[in-house]
């Protein structure tokens, strides 16, 4: 009997240690206080730093979406120094866990909270109703409150500029896109990429393959391989890893980086990276709170505000095409260039924008159809 008890104890201890280790390493909660020990004994004259928290949907090491957000957070810290104190929780699933994590952020005294994925929307709205003294910033959503507002980036501008290069570089006149999840944002990017390509090469068609996931590197690679097998020679993706670029590199074809600069992942395949720079918005939002000018609004920033760009364009791209991309970038910056300007025809042959008509943001938010030149059909439910 004694032996049995001892064995049980050892067994429990063993399991416990393993579980504790898993818990320690597994949930990546990290605080990055500007001056941990100093704050406690700081002279009273100095104002308390503004506490800012970020909830990320993925790991900061994803080299894509969350990585870009975290770069924005670091830029914000560099800008304001010890006037702010930031922290983040990564890999927060879109679900009830998000509410628990964000409520915890409020309880820890954070006065400005960023939620960086669509799925946090309703939880943030609920918490915002309970804590009027805290400001909530929600990325890619559409619901607001007196202390909650939304922000997003015009990723389709980067997709369009990439498309211009793709249209000029393709030899088979077949482009391939690895789509993540069929929501309007992604469909808009596929269309914009194709519009860009058609602006320099009317013969181009785009094949689309959906993986129905944001992040699954082996699967993204398989989808890319499938597109290459079917004759696509320039690839583009709306998924979160660099797997598509690396698949093109392996096959000796061409591709782009997405969300952050991925040029070093495919020295031969990489044509350019469509990046998102969240720093300008994060700095603006923080300044609004520090100066008391924060008010509810919806922000959709693009090339104009420095939030979107196409960077590290390859030397392989001919000079006239590089010049064209530069002209488009400059035009977007000063607001004189419109990507979604008629005539644009849908896949079914119906005109979606009349000649000269410019799409407004409401139109852009509701794109759930393919334009002419994109093959396949939009998956149901989008």
């Amino acid at each position, binding site marked *: 009997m004694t032996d049995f008890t001892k064995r049980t104890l*050892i067994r429990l201890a063993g*399991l416990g240690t393993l579980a504790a*280790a*898993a818990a320690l*390493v597994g949930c990546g909660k990290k605080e990055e206080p500007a001056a941990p020990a100093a704050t406690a004994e700081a002279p009273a004259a100095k104002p308390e730093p503004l506490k800012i928290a970020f909830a990320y949907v993925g790991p900061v*090491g994803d*080299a894509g979406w969350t990585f870009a957000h975290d770069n924005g957070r670091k830029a914000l810290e560099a800008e304001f120094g010890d006037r702010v104190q930031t922290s983040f929780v990564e890999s927060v699933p879109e679900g009830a866990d998000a509410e628990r994590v964000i409520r915890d952020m409020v309880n820890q005294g954070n006065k400005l909270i960023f939620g960086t994925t669509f799925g946090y929307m309703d939880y943030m709205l609920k918490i915002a109703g309970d804590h009027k003294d805290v400001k909530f910033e929600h990325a890619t959503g559409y619901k607001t409150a007196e202390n909650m507002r939304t922000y997003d980036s015009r990723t389709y501008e980067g997709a369009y500029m990439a498309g211009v290069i793709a249209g000029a570089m393709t030899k088979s006149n077949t482009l391939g896109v690895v789509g993540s999840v069929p929501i309007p944002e992604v469909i808009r990017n596929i269309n914009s990429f194709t519009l860009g390509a058609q602006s320099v090469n009317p013969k181009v068609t785009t094949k689309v393959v959906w993986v129905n996931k944001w*992040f699954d590197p082996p699967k993204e690679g398989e989808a890319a391989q*499938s597109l290459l097998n079917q004759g696509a020679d320039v690839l583009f993706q709306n998924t979160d890893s660099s797997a598509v670029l690396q698949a093109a590199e392996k096959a000796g074809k061409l591709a782009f980086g997405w969300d952050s600069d991925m040029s070093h992942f495919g020295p031969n395949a990489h044509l350019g990276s469509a990046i998102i720079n969240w720093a300008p918005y994060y700095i603006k939002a923080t300044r609004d709170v520090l100066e008391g000018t924060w008010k509810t609004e919806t922000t959709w920033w693009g090339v104009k505000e420095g939030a979107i760009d196409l960077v590290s364009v390859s030397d392989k791209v001919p000079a006239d095409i590089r010049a064209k991309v530069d002209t488009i970038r400059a035009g977007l910056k000063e607001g004189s260039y419109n990507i979604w300007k008629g005539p644009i025809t849908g896949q079914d042959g119906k005109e979606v924008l009349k000649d000269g008509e410019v799409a407004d943001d409401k139109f852009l938010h509701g794109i759930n159809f393919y334009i002419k030149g994109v093959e396949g*059909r939009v998956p149901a439910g989008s």
Partner: protein
Amino acid sequence: MEPIALLIAATMNAGTVLAIASLGLLINERAGIVNLGAEGMMLVAAIAGFATGVHTGNDWLAFAAGAGAGAAMALLFGVLVIWLNTNQYASGLALSLFGVGFSAFVGIRYTQERLGDRPRFEIPGLADLPFVGPAFFKHHPMVYIAIVLTVVLAWFLYRSRAGLVLRAVGESPESAHALGYPVRRIRLLAVLAGGALCGLAGAYISVIYTPLWVEGMIAGKGWIALALTTFATWRPARVLLGAYLFGGVTMLQFHLQGQGVQIASQLLTMLPYLATIVVLVLISRNPTFIRVNMPASLGKPFYPGS
């Protein structure tokens, strides 16, 4: 014909990872041990292999490191469940969670790294044949190793004395013990072999199949490999068949999407899982066959004293 040849090639490539991991788990389970830690072992092996590849530039060293890392994880698991008799399912789950976190932790500085240009392989002479060349003879050696492994494992389990002992341990450890076989040592060896093969599969993913490292990059392949052993009723040839089937339907549904077939992509995404389960359930629908092949002491602890 060319696209079909490429589709066959992609199928074999996609099935290889699953086959290797699943064969490893089959060895475990034939000895009566269920290791739910496959996902974690594969992740730790993926970062170990990738890091070794980055530092040495040698793919075979990277595979060795991956297999070693998988075996090391399996050793931890083996000591817990075989000597301390902890619950296999709980320990396996803990190992998986630990592997997910641990690989992310040690892999932070490798997310921006890149391996050099990937080598290309082909079998001289055969690779230039029309159709069969691109379909069957331009693969990475690991694709052929997986096939050889299946044959060797089938021979080992059903034709060799050591295989008989391994199966005896999985059927009735008490009887094997009574006959004088070191049950615990045999189980540990099986667990180590399983871990090493899962590790090999993990390293193959991060070094050759999708040459990069990002945390969580195995993305559930370990769990699929676990399910595959059960659906294949613990028979090596069926594991390979199931793995190719899963890889094939995955690639086929991407191909159909690219061809603009009018089927919802969500449905197509579901297809590999559905097709694999249906086919393997159909060929294994005989209950007696399942009973005969399922290791009778699967998941049960063994106390030599009792």
